[in-house]
C-alpha cells in the first residue's frame, strides 16, 4: 500500500502579530510547526502502513524552509518526503494549492507508485479553509471521505474501504473504493513518539525537492496568485470591547452573600431570564 500524506508547515498561531502600519503579518521570529491536524493524518497513515505494510510519502508545498516540517515527519516514521517549492506557487489560495498538490501527487504516483490513499488534515490553522483536501479529491477524481472518525477496514484486493464518518447528528458507516482521499478528525488516534532510529534516519534522508517543472506542471496560470480566485484584502486585529467587566467586590464577604450579589447582577442585566429559569430550571 502506498499512502501520501499532505502536511503544511504553519506558524505557531499563538505568536502572530500584525504590523500596525502595513497591516501585513509579521512572521519573523515566529516558530513554525507542522499543522497540528496534519499530525493525526500522518499517524493514521503510519498506523495503516504498520498494520498492512507499504510506504508513506509525506508531501508539502511551501518555501524551501518547509523542509523542516518534512524532516520532522520523517522522525515520526514516514518513508519518503517530497518538497514542492517554486516561486510560481507564492500567494496560492486553496484552489491553486489543491491544483499544485494534485499535480505533485500524480507525479509521485508515476515516480514511486500510485497511491491507494491520500490523507490531508481536517484544516490548517493559518489558512484554515478545510478545502484543500476536497480540492485534491476532485481534481484527481479520488473518492472523498471527510471527517472520518474511524477507518474500519481496508481490502486491498477488492480496492474497498469502510469508514465511519461523522455527521451533525450521528455516525455514517460508508463503504467506498480505493484510491480515496481521507480527512480525519482530530483525536482519531494518538500521535506516536518517533523512535531514535527514525530520528537518525530523518537527519540523513534526502528530501525529494521538485520545482513546478519537475512536478510536471506546465500550466503556470493555475498556480500562485494568478491561479487564485480569492484574494486577502485586509488583515486586522479584532477590536476589544470598550468597557471592562463590572467586578463584584469580594472583600470580606461570605460566599453565600457573594453568590446572591452575582445572581442579582445577572438578573438586573437579563430580567427575563429569571422567569425563564424559574420555569424550566431547578
Amino acid at each position, binding site marked *: 500500500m502506498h499512502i501520501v500524506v499532505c502536511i503544511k508547515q504553519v506558524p505557531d*498561531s499563538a505568536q*502572530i502579530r500584525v504590523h500596525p502600519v502595513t497591516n501585513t*503579518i509579521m512572521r519573523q521570529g515566529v516558530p513554525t510547526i507542522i499543522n497540528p491536524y496534519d499530525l493525526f493524518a500522518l499517524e493514521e497513515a503510519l498506523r495503516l502502513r504498520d498494520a498492512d505494510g507499504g510506504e508513506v510519502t509525506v508531501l508539502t508545498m511551501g518555501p524551501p524552509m518547509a523542509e523542516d516540517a518534512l524532516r520532522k515527519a520523517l522522525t515520526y516514521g514516514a518513508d519518503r518526503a517530497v518538497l514542492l517549492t517554486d516561486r510560481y506557487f507564492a*500567494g496560492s*489560495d486553496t*484552489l491553486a494549492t489543491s491544483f499544485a498538490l494534485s499535480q505533485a501527487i500524480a507525479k509521485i504516483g508515476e515516480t514511486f507508485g500510485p497511491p491507494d490513499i491520500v490523507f490531508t488534515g481536517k*484544516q490548517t490553522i*493559518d489558512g*484554515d*479553509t478545510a*478545502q484543500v483536501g476536497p480540492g485534491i479529491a476532485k481534481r484527481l477524481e479520488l473518492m*472523498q471521505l*471527510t471527517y472520518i472518525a474511524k477507518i474500519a477496514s481496508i481490502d486491498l484486493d477488492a480496492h474497498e474501504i469502510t469508514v465511519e464518518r*461523522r*455527521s*451533525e*447528528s450521528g*455516525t*455514517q*458507516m*460508508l*463503504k*467506498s*473504493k480505493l484510491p480515496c482521499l481521507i480527512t480525519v478528525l*482530530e483525536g482519531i488516534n494518538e500521535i506516536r513518539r518517533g523512535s531514535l532510529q527514525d530520528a537518525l534516519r530523518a537527519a540523513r534522508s534526502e528530501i525529494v525537492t521538485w520545482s513546478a517543472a519537475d512536478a510536471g506542471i506546465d500550466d503556470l496560470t493555475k498556480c500562485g*496568485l494568478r491561479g*487564485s*480566485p*480569492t*484574494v*486577502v*484584502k*485586509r*488583515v*486586522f*486585529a*479584532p477590536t*476589544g470591547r470598550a468597557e471592562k*467587566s463590572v*467586578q*463584584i467586590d*469580594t472583600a470580606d464577604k461570605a*460566599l*453565600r452573600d*457573594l*453568590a*446572591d450579589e*452575582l*445572581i442579582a*447582577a*445577572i438578573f438586573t*442585566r*437579563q430580567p427575563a*431570564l*429569571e422567569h*425563564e429559569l*424559574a420555569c*424550566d*430550571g*431547578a
Partner: protein
Amino acid sequence: MLNANREPPPPAAGRAGMKKDLPEHFKDYHHVWVFIELERGQVHPVSFELLGEGRKLADKLGVQLAGVVLGPPGEASWHAVAEAFAYDADLVYIVEAPLLGDYRNEPFTKAMTDLVNTYKPEILLLGATMRGRDLAGSVATTLLTGLTADCTELDVDPDGSLAATRPTFGGSLLCTIYTLNCRPQMATVRPRVMALPQRVEKPVGRIVELKLSMVEDEIVTKVLGFLPDAQSAKANLAYADVVIAGGLGLGGAENLQLVTKLARALGAEYGCSRPLVQKGWMPAERQIGQTGKTIRPKLYIAAGISGAIQHRVGVEGADLIVAINTNPNAPIFDFAHVGIATDAIRFLPALTEAFTRRLSPHSRDKLAS
C-alpha cells in the same frame, strides 16, 4: 452594474490592489443563494441564520434571496421548502431524488453544481457544518471558483462584490477576502456565528425544480448504516440559552461536577475550554471556541477559564458573559460583562445553592405576587 466604466487594473502591484474585472460570461450571475441543510428530516438552524444574512446581502445588491433544498422525495424536503420561505426566501430551488436521502458527496455535488450552472447565482452560502464544508469544497473546485470558509462577517462592497471576513491564525487576526473574477462567490459560516432572524408570515413563493441527472450505479460510495447520536450524549451546546463552562482553573477532573451541578440546577448545558478535551476530562463535542462550538446563549458563565482569543471567538455572541477567575487580570475580564475574582472551586457550590434557593417554587410564588 459591475465595473462597466472602470479603469483597467493597476499593473501587478500585488493582487490586493486589483479590481475585480469580471469576465463577460459571469455577468449574468445574479442573486444570493443559501443551502438549506436537511438531515434526517430536520433543517439545521444554521440555514436560517444564513437566510438572515443572505437577506441583508440581497437587499444591498437589489437581488433575490433563494433557498436551495436538496433532499429525498417527500414531506421532509417540502417542509424544508416551507421553512425557507418562513425565513424570508423569495424563491426556492429544489432537487428531489431518492439519492439525496443520506448525505453523500457525489450526488449532492452533482445536484448543486447542476443548479449553479443552470441558474447562476452570484453568491452561494453554506453552513460550515461537516456536510456544508464537505459539499462546499467539492462544489468550489468543480466550478473553479473561490470559497471563503468559516466567515464571521459578510458584506457587499459598493461595487457589488462580496467581502467575507474570517478569523485567521487561530483566531488572533481577522482577514477580509474577495473572490475576484469567478462566480459564484462562495462562503461558509459556522452555526451560531450569525443571529437567528425572525420568522416572517408570508405565502410560499416561487419554486423551481430540477431533476437530478445521476443514478445509483454512478455513485461509488455506499451508505452501510447510520448510528444516530444517543440523545443523552448529544451536547446541545450551540443552541442552549444558558451555558456553564469550566477551564483548567478547576484544577482536576474531579471538580467538573461543580460545573455540571450548576448546569443541572439551571437546566443549562455545560462545556469547557480546549485543554480539558485534550486531557480527556470532557468529550470533544463540549469544547467551546475557535476549534470547538460557537455559542450564543443568553447567559454564559465561565469558571477557571483564562479567556484566550481562541476561546473568546466562540462565546462573544453571548448576551451576558460572567467570569469567575482567581486572577483579576485574566484576559477573560476584558470581554466578560460581569466578573468575580474568586476561587471557582469554592464559589461554584455556593452559586449553585444560591440559584436553587432563588429559583425554588417558594420564591417563584413571591415572584408571581
